[in-house]
Each structure stands twice: as structure tokens, then as C-alpha cells.
């Protein structure tokens, strides 16, 4: 061994297997803590292991193929295209999930207010967007956009672009309906006594919403939000139908070209690769949320560990 002896784990990391000392390092601002937690989070290692396991499994499986052509070489052949789809998916997810969260937050909040109008609008929103199939919503949005743009003198390229993004917005509004209910449940989970205490201290209602209710609602909402995010990430493949060449779309076109090779095996390899990248995408998002959850964990309120 060379070099100086290390003096224990770096700041902000917990020794493996201990949850208890999470939250003891509370220096720096909240966001610095969040960033540090996400970067130093132990559980990133399963990501690495997961990727390694899938790649090894992939190699084994492709070695099982009877003909050499569509084994690893086929997987590598389609990799650039699949990666391209992955980037497109990443871009889409980065747009419609935050959009859904913004909408969901406002609608969820509206449903917890005293105002009958806001509550009515909120529940109408949730009822509508939760009962519409996302596929139909995406079609409606992009086709209605196409019809509306027909008379304009925008160039066809721009028109097409707008219809594409309308579909993405539709998906954002769809997940917003689900996220609204998560936000509402989070706000309702904060006991009335908290608001009452803030009232009694002379804090205005709107302010106590931001400094008392929402910080607590946010913590309660994180696990179901991660659930919804991981679910709606896979819905990005719906956008293929209006012309987004995203991950599943890339997979679909490669798989349908596989008649040139041995169909079943080439298609299998393709979909395996697609699934691998969906896994990576979902894992990144859910793990980030888990990191945030850990960073905001309130000492003394950890769930009982068995």
C-alpha cells in the first residue's frame, strides 16, 4: 500500500449498512446537501452492478444464438441507433415529467383550497386526464394541432415540430393528473394542528403553506412520485406513434428490419437492448428521487427498520 492512510469516509457518506447516521451531517445549504447525497450515494453501485449483470447476460444470451451474425455484432451494429433513441427518450422525459409535476402541483394544491371554483376545476382536471388513455390524448393533441396549423403559413417543418411537441405536452398533462393526486394526498397528510400552530404564530396562510405544509407534504409525496415517474417514463414509447423516434421506436424499427437476419433472435437482441436502456433511464430517475428522500429525511422520523 502506498500513499497516506485515509482518515475515514469522506464527509457526507454514511458507512455501509447504517441508516442511523444519515442526516447527522447537516452542514451546508439544503441543495448542497442534496447534490452531495446524490453524488456520494452508496446505492449508485447497484446501477453499476446492474449494468454489468445485464451486459454479461446479454453476451451469454447472444452467444446462445445459433448463427454468429446476430450475436454481439448485431447488438453493436444497432447500438448507435438505440443510443440515439435513448437520448430522445431522455429529452422527452426531461420535458414531460417536470411539466407534469408543475401541473400536478398546481392542480393538487387547488384541490386542497377552500375555493369551490378551484376545487371543482382541479377535480375536473384529474377526472378527465386520468380517464383518458394516453394514446388517445397524444393523438388528439397532435392531430388537433395539425388541423389547426393547416391554414397558417408556417413552413411544414415547423408545423410538424409543433404537432410533435403537442403530443409531449399531452403526455405531461396526463401524468399531471396522477401527480396532482399524489400532491393532494401529501398536503392532506399534514395534520391540521401544523397549520393551526402557524396561524397562532401570526404567519399568513399562504406563507405557512410554503414554510410549514409543503415541506412536510413534499417528503410524504416522494415515494409515490418516484412510482409515478418510473411508470410514466415507459409511457414515452407512446410518442413513437406520432413520429418521435425514441427508444422503443428505435427498437421497433430495428426489430422489424430483422427479417434480413434470423428474425426471432435479432428481434430478441434488439428488444433486450431496448429494455436495458429503459432500465437505465428508470433507474437514474428513481435513484435520484431516493437520494433526495434520504437528504430530506427528518431525524427521529425514520421508518422502523426490521
Amino acid at each position: 500500500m502506498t500513499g497516506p492512510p485515509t482518515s475515514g469516509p469522506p464527509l457526507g457518506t454514511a458507512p455501509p449498512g447504517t441508516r442511523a447516521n444519515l442526516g447527522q451531517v447537516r452542514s451546508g445549504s439544503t441543495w448542497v446537501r442534496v447534490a452531495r447525497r446524490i453524488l456520494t450515494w452508496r446505492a449508485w453501485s447497484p446501477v453499476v452492478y446492474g449494468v454489468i449483470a445485464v451486459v454479461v447476460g446479454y453476451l451469454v444470451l447472444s452467444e446462445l444464438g445459433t448463427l454468429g451474425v446476430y450475436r454481439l455484432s448485431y447488438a453493436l451494429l444497432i447500438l448507435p441507433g438505440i443510443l440515439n433513441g435513448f437520448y430522445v427518450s431522455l429529452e422527452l422525459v426531461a420535458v414531460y415529467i417536470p411539466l407534469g409535476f408543475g401541473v400536478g402541483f398546481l392542480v393538487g394544491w387547488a384541490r386542497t383550497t377552500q375555493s369551490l371554483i378551484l376545487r371543482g376545476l382541479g377535480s375536473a382536471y384529474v377526472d378527465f386526464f386520468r380517464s383518458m388513455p394516453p394514446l388517445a390524448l397524444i393523438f388528439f393533441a397532435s392531430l388537433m394541432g395539425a388541423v389547426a396549423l393547416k391554414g397558417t403559413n408556417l413552413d411544414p417543418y415547423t408545423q410538424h415540430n409543433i404537432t410533435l411537441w403537442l403530443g409531449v405536452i399531452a403526455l405531461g398533462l396526463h401524468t399531471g393528473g396522477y401527480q396532482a393526486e399524489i400532491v393532494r394526498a401529501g398536503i392532506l397528510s399534514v395534520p391540521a394542528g401544523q397549520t393551526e400552530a402557524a396561524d397562532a404564530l401570526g404567519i399568513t396562510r399562504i406563507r405557512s403553506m410554503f414554510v410549514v405544509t409543503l415541506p412536510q407534504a413534499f417528503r410524504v409525496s416522494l415515494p409515490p412520485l418516484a412510482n409515478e415517474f418510473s411508470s410514466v417514463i415507459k409511457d414515452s414509447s407512446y410518442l413513437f406513434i406520432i413520429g418521435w423516434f425514441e427508444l422503443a421506436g428505435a427498437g421497433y424499427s430495428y426489430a422489424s428490419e430483422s427479417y434480413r437476419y434470423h428474425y426471432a433472435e435479432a428481434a430478441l437482441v434488439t428488444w433486450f437492448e431496448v429494455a436495458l436502456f429503459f432500465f437505465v433511464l428508470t433507474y437514474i430517475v428513481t435513484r435520484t428521487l431516493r437520494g433526495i428522500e434520504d437528504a430530506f429525511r427528518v431525524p427521529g422520523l425514520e421508518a422502523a427498520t426490521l
Partner: protein
Amino acid sequence: MTTLQLRGIKKSFGKTVVLRGVDLDIDGGEVLCITGPSGSGKSTLLRCTNLLIPPDAGEIYLDSVRVNQRSVRPEWVRQKIGMVFQSFNLFTHLSARKNVMLALRHSRKVSRAEAEKKAVYELNRVGLGDRMDSFPAQLSGGQQQRVAIARALAMDPEVMLFDEPTSALDAESTHEVLAVMTRLAREGMTMAVVTHEIGFARAVAHQIAFFDNGLIVEQGTPAEIFEHPQHERTRSFIQKILR
């Protein structure tokens, strides 16, 4: 020192009449203990006083300023009247120190450094100087209630309301909290305390009000109420809680 006067306070929830026109006076620097059976409207009366529940009728005067009128913001009233709850109601996501700082920062708009200084001072005053960075879930009931008292005191209120502050506590914690309240009373704070702690009421209160069925049945000094209750209803209640 600030006096608090209630005149003809009425409150109903739907068809249930909770307060039937309550008149009450607390002189500056005095402690009034309110006692009476559950469901008689004691908590509602306290909540009407700082307008957490707006009364249907009646007037509330703080040093002869009427506070329940349109031109007076309820937030202003609540900055003058501190309140401590039976169930503590500490903000669960904040440390003791931040619990005390929160209202200063967001209600009085005090700077962070100043709020911090005040929080440290008030927490030391209730004997929690060593637990300032603990979160509510890490504190005992008595410690939580003392943080809640520090939080209310940090606003420099002129009147303090206590709504059964020790009913959720064990004997030892009750003792801690009552000790803090006793000191507060000795320092001359105007206080209204809903309590069944007879020992505390006897030792600290200047006035006792016996409350039943939405009205004050009898009011007087501890000696008058405990030794020579005038009304039959008071007598039977006092006998029950003394036993």
C-alpha cells in the same frame, strides 16, 4: 401590562351552541386558570380569543383595542397573543431551533441572525439549551412542549394562552412544563390557562374560572373556588378532580 377582555362571546358549530355569551377579564400580569368538564367549550373560547376560530358575536379587547373587527388583521392579533397547544404542534420537519426561528422569520420578518439569537435565548430560557438541534421526534413530550412555549415566547407576546398544555404528558414532563409556566407567571406574563392541574392553579392563578356548558358558572380566587364553591355544579366538579 396588557389586559384582555372578552364581552359576550358566542359561537356555534352548526346547531351545536358551544359558547353562550362569555364575559371574561384578565388583568395585566395576572394568571387566569379555566377549568371545567370536557366539551364545555374551554378550548373553543381560547381559540376565539386569538381568532383561530372567529366568534359569531361578542367583542375581544386587548388593552381596550377591539381586535375582532375588520380593520384589524388577525395576524397582528396573533403576534400579540401567544398560544400553546395540548398536542404541542411543533413543526415536525424542523429542529427545535428552527421551530422557534420560523415565526420570527416569516411573521415578524426578523433577519436570520437576529432570529437565531432570539431562538437560542428563548430555548435556554426553557432549559433546552443543549437540545436546540434536536428534531421534535427526538424530544420527549415535556421537551416538545417547552420548545412550543419558547416558540410562542419568541414573538414577545403580551398575553399567553395555554390549551391544556400538560394533558398529553406524564407526571415528570408535566412537572417540567408547569415549572416553566410558573416562572413565566412570576415574571408577570398575562396568561389564560385551560388546565385540570389543581396544584398549579392553586399556587399560580390569581383567578379561577369554572366553565360549563358554554358559560362561566363561577369565577373567583383559588381559595374561593376550591374551598367555598357557590354553585352545586362547581362543587361536584371540584370534588371529582380533587379526589
